[in-house]
């Protein structure tokens, strides 16, 4: 017995100093292989007395467990060491730059159009469109602006023919005409899009964007107009309160007509919308003129409603602090990267209009 114990102690010592898996495995077969030392000891058990056998068997089993345990721990130990060593060797500098990220952007005009559409969608408006090239009738005459009307002077029109029959629309209002001519009331639409005037300086571009609004039904009055725009402006600028002023004005296609101002102040050189004692004109609106309704075959004694026109670029400039209108259309990579929006930033009611 003491022999076996000695063998065991020797092997435990051996294992303690061993650092090679293969050698540990060799030890394993030396001990437990077919003719292994421990295996042979077990074979001897058959030739001794029952009394002795019991005792010896129990001792042998203990020794066997102890050695096997030691071996598996050792193997694990060595393997862990080897893996750690390998990992250590494989270490890389993770602060090296990643592969290039290509970040695309959505133009502020597109983003603002999406914001506007999202807001009006919430109160039941749908989106209509019309062509950029219009005829004189849809752009002016149908909108109660006959040829001899001085109001035409306010629109510097681009023409496509010498008879002034075909032109680039000067506002989005002809979409009203098209929408009403092709359908039956009620109408509840917005129409964002490109508009054109032959005007070019710091604050005017020959092309800009407007959104038209039109709500015609049996009992739509100026209170609804005020409510709708009040809602829109508050939502758009994402403020709880907004100072707003409706002021009488004149457009040939609406009557009564109004211009809407919002309050603002300059704080630390930046414009703050909603408060303050200065007024900024942001849109024109009014009740659709009965002459317009007659022109589009809607009976003005049965139906009435409001229309409005908002400058999209200007709204975007105010909301996002952009100073120069011309820069919108100059495709400067730096400007587009700076003012553009992430394509995943889709304005919506539940995710919020803007981040």
């Amino acid at each position, binding site marked *: 017995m003491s022999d076996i114990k000695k063998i065991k102690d020797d092997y435990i010592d051996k294992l303690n100093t061993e650092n090679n898996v293969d050698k540990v495995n060799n030890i394993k077969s030396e001990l437990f292989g077919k003719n292994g030392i421990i295996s042979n000891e077990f074979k001897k058990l058959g030739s001794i007395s029952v009394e002795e056998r019991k005792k010896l068997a129990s001792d042998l089993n203990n020794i066997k467990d102890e050695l096997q345990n030691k071996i598996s721990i050792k193997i694990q130990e060595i393997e862990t060491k080897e893996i750690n060593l390998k990992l250590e060797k494989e270490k890389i500098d993770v602060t090296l730059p990643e592969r290039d990220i290509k970040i695309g952007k959505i133009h502020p005009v597109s983003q603002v159009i999406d914001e506007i559409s999202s807001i009006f969608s919430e109160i039941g408006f749908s989106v209509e469109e019309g062509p950029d090239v219009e005829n004189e009738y849809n752009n002016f005459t149908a909108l109660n602006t006959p040829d001899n009307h001085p109001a035409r002077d306010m629109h510097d029109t681009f023409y496509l023919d010498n008879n002034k029959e075909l032109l*680039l629309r000067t506002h989005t209002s002809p979409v009203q005409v098209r929408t009403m001519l092709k359908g039956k009331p009620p109408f509840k639409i917005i129409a964002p899009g490109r508009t*054109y005037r032959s005007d070019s300086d710091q604050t005017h571009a020959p092309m800009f964007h407007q959104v038209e609004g039109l709500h015609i039904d049996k009992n739509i*009055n100026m*209170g609804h107009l005020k409510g709708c725009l009040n809602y829109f402006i508050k939502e758009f600028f994402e403020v709880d309160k907004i100072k707003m002023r409706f002021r009488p004005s004149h457009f040939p296609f609406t009557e009564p007509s109004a211009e809407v101002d919002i309050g603002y102040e300059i704080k630390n050189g930046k414009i703050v919308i909603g408060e303050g004692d200065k007024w900024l004109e942001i849109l024109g609106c009014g009740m659709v003129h009965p002459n317009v309704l007659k022109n589009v075959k809607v009976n003005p004694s049965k139906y009435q409603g409001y229309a409005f026109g908002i400058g999209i670029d200007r709204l975007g400039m105010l909301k996002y602090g952009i100073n120069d209108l011309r820069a*919108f*259309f100059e495709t400067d*990579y730096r400007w587009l990267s700076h003012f*553009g929006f992430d394509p995943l930033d889709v304005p919506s009611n539940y995710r919020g209009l803007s981040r």
Partner: protein
Amino acid sequence: MKFTVDWLKNHLDTKFNNNQIIDKLTNIGLEVESFESSKSELDTFIVAKIINAKTHPNADRLKLCDVDIGSDKTIEVVCGAPNAKNGLLTVYAPPGSIIPKNQMKLSVSKIRGVTSYGMLCSESELLLSNESDGIIELKNNKYANKIGEKYFKNTSEKVIDLSITPNRPDCLGVRGIARDLSAAGAGTLKINKKSNLKYRGNQNINVTIKKEKAQGCTIFGSCLIKGVTNKESPKWLKDKILSLGQKPISAIVDITNYVMFDLNRPLHAYDADKIDNEVIVRSSSKGESFEALDNKKYILENDMCVISDRSGVLGLGGIIGGTRSGTEYSTKNILLESAYFLPRSIRKTSKQLNIDTDAKFRFERGIDPLSIEEGLIKASELIKQICGGEISNLDVKKVDNYKKTIIDFDPFLFEKTTGFNVENKELIKILEKLGFDVSKNKKILKLVVPSWRPDITQSIDIVEEIVRIKGYEHINTSEPIKTRLKPTLNYYQKLFHFLQRSVASKGYLETVTWSFTDSKINQLFKENDEEIPIVNPISSDLNVLRNSIFPNLLFYLKKNLDRGFKDISLFEIGPAFKGKNPGDQLTVIGAVRAGKVSRLSWNDKERIVDTFDVKKDVIQSLCEAGIDKDDIVIDDKTPSYYHPGKSGGVYQNKNEKNALAYFGEIHPNIIKKLDIKTEGLVIFEICLDYIKDSKQKIKDSKSEYKFSDFQKSERDFAFIINKNFKSQELVNIIKSVDDKLIKSVRVFDVFEGENIPEGKKSIAVNVTIQSEEKTLNENDLENINKLIISSVESKSGAKIRS
């Protein structure tokens, strides 16, 4: 329209202060653009204090003064005055000031080698006295706390500038503005004093309004004023004219201008002695000409309304007078004209000749046809008062009588339109103050529209009058009605937004460029489309509507490359025009990529962008937008601006006529012509209109979910095939061997050259085979292999590589 509060008060009794008047004007629709004193040249002179006066380093008699002018820093001024000393309060003139004595404009200058910013002034220089020995010494007790303030008070009255909408000619005169204010409760309109003018003799210059179809004049009133002495206007009149921002000319001209702005009644004064016998109001004939008071010679067309005498044209009625009959200081007798011209005629003539005058502006919008006599009387009175003379009887010739506009107004329309109610009593009061004649017939109000309101023709105009005078603040703010009539966006609108963001998400910056472009660049991209010129372009390089998005996109790409950017991805979504009629336009995405895919990368090889980069972008975007990749067919026919060998068209299926997208390299000739300097340039375009509306929502179009758990096998094949044979064809041949078993075919290697015969190429494909019914055994697989090889060989002429 400019006027002073004083002038307004000639017509309005009011207790309102200036700010209240300003607010009221805005609230009733007469928008105040500004309210400020007209600028004075004396505004720049300010009170200043000498902090330190030391001797000039280069001149004993000059001093170098540090002057406190009320700003953060003191200013250094060189001064020759003996009395300049520390602590003296005086008057400082900054550079740019005009010295009243000699009208010299100050500039920053070096005096004996030291820079002097402005000057300290003597009383004589400011024309305050003859004292020129030293600079002004201001009293300490009065000026000590006024350093930095203006020395001269600006005594000119503040001027209100209104922006009058084109429907309100009546407010192009101060009286009309006063009337509106009185209706809105801002005071009482003063009653015009009855004239006690004495007339002597008749107006004996015969006036005829010719009966002609195109006659632009319907009333011509006039009187003769004999024996006047024309002169400089008195101060009060000059001040009025100056407050309008105009220059006084002579009493007679100033008076006619004054009456025009006071009553909105344009007048014209002729030197009666220069009129040849008689006045004939008639239509012009082409080629007639005259020299106008703006010193330009105008050559007339047919049918322009002219005032003439026997010798020819005197002036354009209601627009501008002529020099031949103009008044001068020497004028003794004048003929004063007060007429009515038709807006349509005025507008047409002034547009044709490109003339804009105050009179034209008013007649074009509509002058009160019943104000003929009032204008003659008011001006005659003033002329008599200032220039003397005797006034003849008034002579009024008419070819048409004014007809009153009468409106039957149902007050209910007011509430129906505005959403709030105004008592009848108040409503009538407002209308009466605006000059309406109101009578009641049961519930309906019979309204006679005042003659100065040509804009009012129907009931809705009355609603506007009442609501604007009552005030828009009375309109309620109703909660928005949320009822929806139809979905917010239709299929194509959704597609627009989807593709826009899909392309952007692949690293492209969205831009918005003009819908017009340079015909020279457009030419390169227009293919068979017609060119659409703009008649009046904003500039010669934006002279046509764009037939394609690329002319602008490449123009701006070049600009960005010139700015030093190398790797650029840009796109625009918007209209491309195919014809000049409304609706001849397509909605197109155009995208460009220039430069390299990875540049200066520590781990990736640099690679120039190529056709397959944009092919991926375009196909992926289309798939994301809902197009089935398996349906997509690629073709190599593309527009001429693409590289003919390195570009492709994308079709939604093989029978489609129009390509919904193109991609590839741009034609090298175009890069050369546009002088674009970049390593690589690839583009793609998607035409949204050519994408077919799926008509089905996803909830209806999802197919049944089927999958197979049986073992997949992969086999590789390499074929030697004609160089021009399309890989798409090869893949289709393999797929068609067994649609059910062959799950995918991947091309993983293509090469030519070494070991490959001339005119051939090697294509290697990996085929995934899987059954939905069983695990395929070796035999099954072998059969499919054979079939694939034999089909490819027979259909394509390829040979399997062994």
